[in-house]
């Protein structure tokens, strides 16, 4: 035991001495959560548009002003002919063109029908959808003002209730995923690289001939990263709760237990990766391509899994982060009790066991 403790303290010293890595380790989660909280939103701001006004009357002026004063749009330039549209889009700055037909105001008054055309740059489909939605709702709003004082047909009102996230904040959605990615990064990636490093530098040999048994070596390697991950994790929770006001509606005790389970999954994955890679670069490349990218893309962190094609939905089941994200969202946002997440927990536990057994089988006491 004393030997083991000495080994763990050696590992801690290794890590704590390297202040650059340490800075990044703790700076990364903070930077990412601030980024998601402040910089990535679901709302459009200052999208640059062009207006092609064939009519140039009071009505079109009023509508243009209403659109431009909404805060969503910035007028980049006024066009004078349909021939200007294509080059304007190709320049890559404007995202939308609004076209008013000739005699717009007159048509609206006389024949009660006037035409507006909106052209969006759909090379970004999501943005195009949002821009068209915003523009048309502003125009519909203007139209509603025109209808004031007129008798209206009977109407169904729709009352919307947004459950779990009334202000539709994107940070609510990202925090659970961010936890998974940071835990994976620190535990799986750091562990695998630090063991691969001993192999690459040849110091693994020295450890293996020491009186420590292989199990102690591996556990000793893992312990410091376990604690660093835990501290990181707590920082994320505190920031999420107190800076971005993400609620923790469920039991915090359950949340921490589940997170420790996921930590063990990540650590066992890290060990597994290190047993199959002989140098740091290989360990890094495997960690990134087999762990990090899938955890970001296929886990539901940014893109909802249920929108993906079926084969990918099936594949997403083997990604531990997916299960962890379901668990965390359930506990934090929806306040579910353990009975709702039994399946997810069992899957994570099963995966951990599998990775541990596989690592033991793959672990070589002797170097080749």
């Amino acid at each position, binding site marked *: 035991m004393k030997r083991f403790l000495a080994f763990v303290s050696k590992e801690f010293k290794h890590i704590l001495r390297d202040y650059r890595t340490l800075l*990044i380790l703790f700076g*990364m989660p903070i930077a990412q959560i601030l980024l998601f909280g402040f910089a990535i*939103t679901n709302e459009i701001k200052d999208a640059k548009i062009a207006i092609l006004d064939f009519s140039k009357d009071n009505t079109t002026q009023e509508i243009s002003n209403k659109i431009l004063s909404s805060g969503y749009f910035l007028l980049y330039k006024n066009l004078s002919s349909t021939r200007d549209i294509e080059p304007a889009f190709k320049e890559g700055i404007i995202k939308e063109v609004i076209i008013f037909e000739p005699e717009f105001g007159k048509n609206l008054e006389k024949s009660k029908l006037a035409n507006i055309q909106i052209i969006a740059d759909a090379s970004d489909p999501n943005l195009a959808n949002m821009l068209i939605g915003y523009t*048309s709702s502003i125009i519909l709003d203007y139209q509603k003002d025109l209808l004031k004082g007129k008798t209206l047909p009977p109407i169904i009102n*729709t009352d919307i209730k947004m459950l779990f996230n009334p202000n539709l904040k994107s940070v*609510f959605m990202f925090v659970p995923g961010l936890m998974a990615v940071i835990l994976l990064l620190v535990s799986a990636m750091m562990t695998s690289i630090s063991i691969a*490093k001993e192999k690459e530098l040849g110091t693994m040999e020295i450890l293996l001939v020491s009186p420590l048994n292989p199990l102690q070596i591996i556990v000793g390697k893992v312990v410091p990263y376990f604690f660093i991950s835990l501290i990181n994790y707590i920082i994320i929770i505190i920031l999420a709760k107190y800076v971005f006001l993400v609620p923790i509606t469920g039991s915090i005790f359950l949340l921490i237990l589940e997170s420790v389970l996921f930590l063990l999954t990540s650590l066992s994955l890290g060990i597994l990766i290190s047993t199959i890679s002989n140098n740091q*670069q290989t360990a890094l490349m495997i960690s990134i391509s087999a762990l990090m990218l899938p955890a970001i893309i296929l886990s539901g962190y940014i893109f909802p899994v249920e929108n993906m094609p079926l084969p990918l939905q099936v594949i997403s089941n083997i990604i531990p982060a997916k299960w962890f994200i379901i668990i965390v969202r359930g506990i934090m946002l929806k306040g579910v009790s353990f009975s709702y997440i039994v399946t997810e927990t069992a899957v994570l536990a099963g995966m951990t066991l599998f990775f541990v057994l596989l690592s033991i089988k793959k672990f070589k006491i002797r170097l080749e």
Partner: protein
Amino acid sequence: MRIIYIILKKEFLQIFRNKSMIPLIFFMPVLQLLVLSNAATYEIKNIKFNIVDYDQSHFSRELISKFTASNYFVLNDVSFSVENSEESFKKNQAKLIIHIPKDFEKNFRSQGLSGVQLVINAEDGSAAGIINNYALNITRDLNIDMAVESSVMPEPVPMINIDYSNWYNSELDYITYMVPGILVVLVTMIGTFLSGMNVVKEKEIGTIEQLNVSPIKKYQFITGKLMPFWFIGIGELAFGLLIGIIVFKIPMLGSPLIIFMLASVYMFVVLGMGLLISTLTNTQQQAMFIAWFFLVLFILMGGIFTPVESMPAWAQAIAYFNPVAQFNRAMRMIMLKGSGFKDVLPTLYFFIVYASVMMSLAVWRYRKTES
């Protein structure tokens, strides 16, 4: 020249000898491209919804049939309690509850005003926004139908007809949108990581000393170190473009030549960044972490997954100085919109300046002597 050639030969030998790296450098990006471009979609289909209908009238059934008939919604469950129905949110079975109160039809007929409640699972804020839009469109349609049916339009009211078109991707296909962005991510990651870890590896193993005492000049060393990764990066881009065009049928409206011209300068930005990182660090672990940190920032703020327009003004200003954002924008412009050389010229200038700054910093930081 001969010296550079020899270093190049050594580097290529080292890369291709490492058996476990070859599949990672060459196959993983392809696999990622195939998987990621399919996975990265905000398109929402088959939204499962529950019905709580306390009214059970002709009118409420009409509303429900409007939902089931649309392409976006799939009926999950019918029940008589909103609380029970909300349970299915917790079990991740449904995203929307349509709650129709008692006297829904009666109120509409007698008072001309009636209400329906939509409860949306808003865990995912942006998805909730989209579901809300779809649902509102359906109730708006119903309102128009009813107005026509009851024909109580007393006088013609002024109407503005909005006609919209989506240019350059009229089907709003996400794969078309994602592939150029993912190619940018792949090229950037491969370039930064490979170059970032390479020099630092020589430092860590101690072989840098042997190189330092050799007659190799600084510039020869750096050229020899970077060229292999430049070729790998450009080769990967070419391969990725081919896959995009052949497998995903991505349009290539502009000239591939312009893409490669931009990419060849962009690679120097990326490699310069990697090299700078490796001169600032002592171990591969540090290098990797710093590289990862900046890449994540650059990529997330690069407009690849979320539009730059959805960031606040200060973040949009920063995005201008983000090479990933610039390359991503240029790739989409050239491939999807057919922008020409003139349109991407500012980006090219930007890359040239950026690359020179990065390279000079890296060369300046690289010292043969121990500090």
